[in-house]
């Protein structure tokens, strides 16, 4: 009797589990169309789902369409997401290389590193790599030479801090929160330290290894700093809601590296417009599809940066944006 009861209960619980899985399972969007011989095949690999990276992908595909390359008509796009897992990147890169795709687009540094190690002849186009030289993707920004080129999303800590000075002039101690294993963050943080030294500010660092560390790390900065700074850090970007929570409670402004992080509650950034970055990457893709060698196209660094502000956050921490700051903003989130 007891045994039967246990079996029934366990069956019910397992059913609950299965139900919760199927109930929430997304509609599969699988690309099963058999590519015909004439169609060019493009593989897109992205490290993780995250608003900035998604924006790049979407605007890149839009740009290709605008220039006459339509998915399913004259090209086939195979989009793969590694869901934040490095091993998946390897598998995806191998798949792209062994199927002899005509072009591989790699979004974010880890994706690009995985693909570059996999093929030396298929053209590779990276996007959103903060430091292409330091990450070993190319040896020369002007003349990459081999089969690799792309667009960089390097932001300048100096520019962001310049904006911070305009909004909150009295800040002296900056709390830097980032994942020290992300090369893209480390280069920006070094840039921040140089800036701080020149402007006699101090930098208090709080590094994280995983999104579950973020809450305690940010809290540890409270009382020690006047503002919080985070570069385009994937770990911090994933945990942005909790950064905002803690900072708002402590009335600290949070200056970030990406527009998506402002949307998720950061106060302001002077950063990249990912829509434009994706469009630029799309234009390079068109050049390569039309027969240009990837190595002949210089790596592009974004020259124009945009200001993004978050009004809701400003209200929470009791800051008023001046009119000229508001005027210079490309987009203001919140109300």
């Amino acid at each position, binding site marked *: 009797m*007891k*045994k039967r009861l*246990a*079996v029934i*209960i*366990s069956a019910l*619980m*397992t*059913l*609950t*589990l*299965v139900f*919760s*899985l199927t109930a*929430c*399972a*997304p509609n599969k969007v699988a690309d099963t169309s058999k590519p015909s011989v004439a169609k060019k095949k493009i593989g897109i690999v992205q490290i*993780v*789902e*995250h608003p900035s990276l998604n924006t790049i992908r979407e605007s890149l595909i839009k740009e290709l369409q605008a220039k006459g390359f339509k998915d399913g008509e004259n090209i086939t796009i195979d989009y793969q*997401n590694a*869901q*934040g897992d490095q091993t998946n990147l390897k598998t995806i890169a191998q798949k792209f290389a062994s199927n002899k795709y005509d072009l591989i687009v790699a979004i974010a540094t880890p994706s690009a590193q995985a693909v570059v190690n996999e093929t030396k002849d298929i053209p590779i186009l990276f996007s959103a790599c903060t430091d292409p030289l330091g990450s070993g993707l190319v040896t020369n920004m002007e003349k990459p030479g081999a089969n690799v080129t792309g667009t960089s999303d390097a932001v300048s800590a100096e520019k962001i801090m310049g904006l911070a000075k305009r909004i909150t002039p009295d800040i002296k101690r900056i709390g830097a929160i980032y994942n*020290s294993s992300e090369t893209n963050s480390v280069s920006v943080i070094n840039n921040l330290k140089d800036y701080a030294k020149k402007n006699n500010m101090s930098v208090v660092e*709080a*590094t*994280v*290894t*995983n*999104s*579950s*560390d*973020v*809450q*305690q*790390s940010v*809290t*540890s900065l*409270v*009382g020690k700093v006047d503002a919080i700074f985070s570069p385009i850090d994937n770990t911090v970007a*994933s*945990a*942005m*809601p*909790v950064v*905002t*929570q*803690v900072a708002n*409670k*402590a009335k600290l402004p949070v200056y970030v590296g990406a527009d998506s992080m402002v949307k*998720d*509650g950061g106060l302001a950034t002077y950063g990249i417009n990912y829509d434009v970055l994706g469009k630029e990457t799309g234009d390079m893709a068109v050049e390569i599809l039309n027969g240009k060698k990837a190595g002949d196209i210089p790596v592009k660094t974004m020259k124009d940066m945009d200001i993004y502000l978050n009004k809701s956050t400003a209200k929470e921490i009791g800051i008023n944006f001046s009119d000229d700051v508001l005027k210079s903003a490309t987009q203001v989130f919140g109300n």
Partner: protein
Amino acid sequence: MTFMVLQGSFELGIIYAIMALGVFISFRTLNMPDLSVDGSFVLGAAVSAVMSSNGHPFLSLGIAFLAGCGAGCITALLHTKLKIQPLLAGILTMLALYSLNLKVMGGRANIPLMNKATVFNVLEKTALGDYSKLIFSLAVLLLMLLLLFLFLNTRLGFVLRATGDNDHMVRALGVNTDSVILMGLALSNGLVALSGALIAQSQSFVDVGMGIGMVVIGLASVIIGEVVFGTKTLLRRLIAVVLGSILYRLIIAFALEIGMPPTDLKLVSAVIVALAMAMPIIKKRLSVVKRKLTVTHHERSK
């Protein structure tokens, strides 16, 4: 330490204590090292986040608990029916859950809950205000603690504890230990998933990698509690787990306070757990050394 750091440590400590109670059931009462915790924690968080996005934050806590129970059942069945070692069974479930969690989250590795109704921002609008996290988490924790205490004092609860001590004896008494293990692991992972759900609600996001190292945190909490608060009675043991969890958070907050890089924290946790696990052996060795010293001292004085 500022008041905010203290409050934050208590909030986290209380929520993670629910997870530590789950780890206590598998490791201490069932005597099974169950590593599925890393996966079931995220499972609870994912289920809760998806349901909260659709406007059911309170209901999601219960469903998260049940989903965790299901995950625990799978580990138990792998171990009891397929005779896979408990350690490996847990690892297999943890691995499988990574994919399942992504499925639950609709293929996204990260779900923000900004501007969505969560348990806490609903309660913040009530009289609880700023302390809603602390009070509600504490209420959930005390409820779980009470239910667990009552359950472990029933006949079935005694059988569960006995199974961990000596399953041969329990089997000889005609009890089916397989279903006892099934129930124990289901309960354990249910608590872990509930803790994950509360964490997701409290920090307003879920990340597929947020469960890494959870089992060690749970174990560290259990062991710190045992060392500091003792293991005399069952109630004391349960309360020790809770206090251990809070103490663990305070230790981490203190480590961050004195400027220790968080990258070293995992190493510190591992060392704490290893030392505490080795306590009995260390004590034994020490007593042998002591006895030798007293004996030699005795002989000399003759």
